[in-house]
């Protein structure tokens, strides 16, 4: 469903010169699977997911999503993915219902099917009481619900969640995680980035630990734990990152 090959993205930075946000990243995600990108802030998770969702263009490398190449058929890709991140806000001057309707129409849903779909989603996410509230008047939890509804309104086969629980209280975060879980059970192909260990352990079938634009290790949690002989996920994470930093320092000196 998602196939990324050698994705590379470099930026020009005033202070540091040319910087690699993503350095030859490759991975595959299958339907019915949640693939976790685990990494500290600034590791390149967001860049990677933005490339897969065609918002950014890769400097080199390629990605195929649901059978379409992100570089040559971005519109086809966009209509087959649902993307949600901390940067995909909702409109202040639209009500929850208008917002979801608007994006549903953008995806080309027929009016009848759209209304039915909205009823379904609002039912599952328990959004009926907020359907006529303007975005500016909503609490963070309500906004997150609208965002999820917006992400899944066109029932996409591929879903991309970029740190969806950042800044949410425990209750809302839990609801979001539950929603993602149920989406996996529907057979969706899901890629999920976070820096929170617990979510990874709970949710992800396979993970990639990403640091400074490079994938340090990838596999299922059990695989990783046995490979590095470290039963604690958090310790494993620290271990890998400090090892990588030490390696870079050694290379340079």
């Amino acid at each position, binding site marked *: 469903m998602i196939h990324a090959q050698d994705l590379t993205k*470099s930026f*020009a*930075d*005033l*202070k*540091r*010169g*040319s*910087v*690699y946000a993503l350095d030859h990243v490759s991975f595959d995600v299958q339907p019915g699977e949640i693939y976790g990108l685990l990494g500290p802030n600034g590791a390149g998770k967001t860049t990677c997911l*933005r490339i897969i*969702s*065609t*918002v*950014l*263009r890769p*400097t080199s490398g390629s990605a195929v999503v649901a059978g379409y190449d992100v570089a040559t058929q*971005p*519109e086809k890709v*966009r*209509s087959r*993915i649902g*993307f949600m*991140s901390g*940067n*995909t*806000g*909702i*409109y*202040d*001057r*639209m009500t929850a219902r208008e917002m979801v309707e*608007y*994006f549903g*129409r*953008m*995806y*080309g849903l027929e009016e009848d099917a759209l209304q039915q779909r909205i009823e379904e989603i609002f039912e599952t996410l328990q959004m009926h009481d907020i359907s006529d509230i303007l975005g500016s008047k909503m609490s963070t939890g309500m906004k997150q619900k609208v965002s999820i509804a*917006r992400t899944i309104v066109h029932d996409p086969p591929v879903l991309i969640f970029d740190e969806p629980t950042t800044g949410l209280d425990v209750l809302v975060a839990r609801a979001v995680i539950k929603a993602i879980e149920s989406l996996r059970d529907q057979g969706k192909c899901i890629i999920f980035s976070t820096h929170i260990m617990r979510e990874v352990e709970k949710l992800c079938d396979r993970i990639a630990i990403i640091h400074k634009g490079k994938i340090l290790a990838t596999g299922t949690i059990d695989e990783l734990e046995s490979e590095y002989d470290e039963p604690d996920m958090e310790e494993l994470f620290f271990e890998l990152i400090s090892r990588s930093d030490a390696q870079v320092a050694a290379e*340079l000196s």
Partner: protein
Amino acid sequence: MNWRRIKLIFQREIRDQMRDRRTLFMIAVLPLLLYPAMGVGMVRMLVSFQEQPRTVVVLGERELPEHPELIQPTKTGEEGPRRFVKGWFGLYSDADKLDVYTESMLPRAGDPDADPKLKQLLADAKRIRQKYDQRETLKSTPGRTKDEIELVNRQLGVLFSTSGIQVLIIVPDGFGANIAEVNRLLSEKSGDSEAVPEYGRPIIMHNKADKKSQIAYRRVSSAVSAWEQGILSERLSAAHLPATMTTPVNAEAVDLAQVEDISQSLWSVLFPALLIIMSVTGAFYPAIDLAAGEKERGTMETLLICPASRTEIVIGKFLTIMTFSMSTAILNLLSMGLTGNYMMSAMGGGIFGQAGALAPPSLTALMWVLVLLIPLAALFSALCLSLATFAKSSKEGQYYLTPLLMVTLGLTVFCLSPMIEITPFFSVLPIIGPALLLKELLSSQGSAETLVYAIPVLVTSVIYSMLALWWAIELFSREDVLFRESERFELGLWLRHLLREKEATPSFTEGVVCIVMIFFLQFASYKFLGQIDQDAPLQALKLQMMYLVVTVACPALFMAVMLTKSVRQTLRLRWPSGKMLGLAVLLPVALHPLSLELLASLEWFFPQLPSAVTAQLAALTDNNLPLWLVLLVFAVTPAVCEEVAFRGFIMSGFSHSNRKWLPIMLSALAFGLVHMIPQQVFNATLLGVVLGLIVYHSRSLVPAILFHLTYNSLPILRGRMETKWIEDTPAEWFFAVEGGAIRYEWPTLVIAAVLAVVLLRWLLAQPVGKSSSASANAKLSMESDVNVKTSVRV
């Protein structure tokens, strides 16, 4: 492109804006309230406004002729300042706007009861008179230096401006008696012209730089001329001469302006100005909200991941902004028109008394307002959207858009000037074209001839709008514009970055900076060029050469050395194939007659050349100068300097994106624009395209220099050609002699055209091979690999 999605975006944005209180206020509430409020304010002002009377001092009142009187005699018991005789004013009430003070109001010099203000005024006036006399004696005394006179002159100025006197009239001694004497001589008809004595003239002192003094002077001087007429007619009647003696022609001016015409001329000024200002204001706030606001509120990415393409998003947003721009303009015009109409009819007898009730503009005029509003609004909307896309917050957006607003205001003022009329040249300029056309169409003189301009105005306006829209789409597709992080910016850091992170060829921005630098240097050296002495041709030629080297070649070379890794690659210093060199010589020979004819046939289109330029062009054909020098100055130097800058550094900068036409077009346009004079701008832009193509296909600057050199040499050589070489020879088939210069006959033109087409087709068919900038980029990415590592180590 999917119009359904564009419509969706458009509808959403409109609804979004309608829910925004700020937008609603700007677009609907403000115009509806502003003009009536302004109207009320104006009425109040007019009611409470009364002009302050100005101070006029008359020295030597006793010397005025006894009849006719200039100043109203004082009635007994009357206090306060005196007045001029009302009869000398066109509007009697004007007499009350001048307070006249004379010496006779102060009978005894040391009167303690006298008004201290009056005493002060008269004392000041006398001091001014003394100073004036001192200056005049100095002027007439031989051997006095300019500085001495200047010093006294300054003192005189200071005295006058600090005195509080707006106009000072000094009547010379014996003035009245002299007039009476001349009257007597004339009435007796005994005197011949020599017998009439010369006598001193009165002086009216005023200060042109002071508004109050200026207004007072205008009134005084018209009253004094009327009074002079009075003296004259008395003189004529005393001499038994007809009163019409001094006015043998006395033409009568007949004004045919109708009431509608007056209002139409008012509309023709107000409507274009208001239309421009309001369409830009109407686009301003929605553009910021739709582009920068979207980023600020964090919904940009939400929009980018929906299936709509960037083009569809931009067009949807553009249409929204345009809708608001147009409705703002229309609402403002309506509100202002209705308020103005009401005010005019309400105060029929006021300052616009002669206009009475304003006639509303005709339906055709209103239709034209609407038609021309469309391209104007489109251009402004696209421009505002582009600029606002750059910004990452609404506040930043306002900073970027303010210059646009200011430029527009400047253009509006330009168009308002009654001297400016639509010409073929103006009609193709953005904003100015539609504004002037509208002005012409709305004024009563607008005729069928004006309608001819509608075609170029509309066509070019559409082109400009499309270009601006294309720019907006271009910006919207750029990641660095959409995802601009608020990174810290330090000048030092940035400069170091520029010098350290050099690339093989310059960046796009560096190309733009180079153009700006050239423009700036040209502007700065304009002053020196103006001082060229046309009588010293050698010096003029030297200056001309230096000018090109300093303003065009230097910035480009400097930037190439400082900012790029490879000067050779940047300036494309590479030896081309022999065929290319052949083309570079042949093509200008073919193009020269064509461009000459093209320019000649477009002569009507461009404004006339300024005389200085004509003189400079004449130097080209001045046969007294050595040919090699003229060729050096007008062919070799420009060829090398301009090619190094425009096809060298600037085009390399623009080529960074690996496109073909964008760098060629942009560098050609910049090349054209530095030529300043419209004819040359046109010609140079066309040539710039050809030169760009040559550089693109040959990947070398050398053929471009050769082409440029040949092209510039041809007119010089043509000027040197003796006309007798052609006369009465078979060459007359190809050349014609016109006014001492040689022109080309049509067989030459046909041959030239065929040759040019063949050569250009050959050029376009040349394989570009591996484009130089592509390989530069490949190299670059390898180099930057190394860079990262090295810089981290540091």
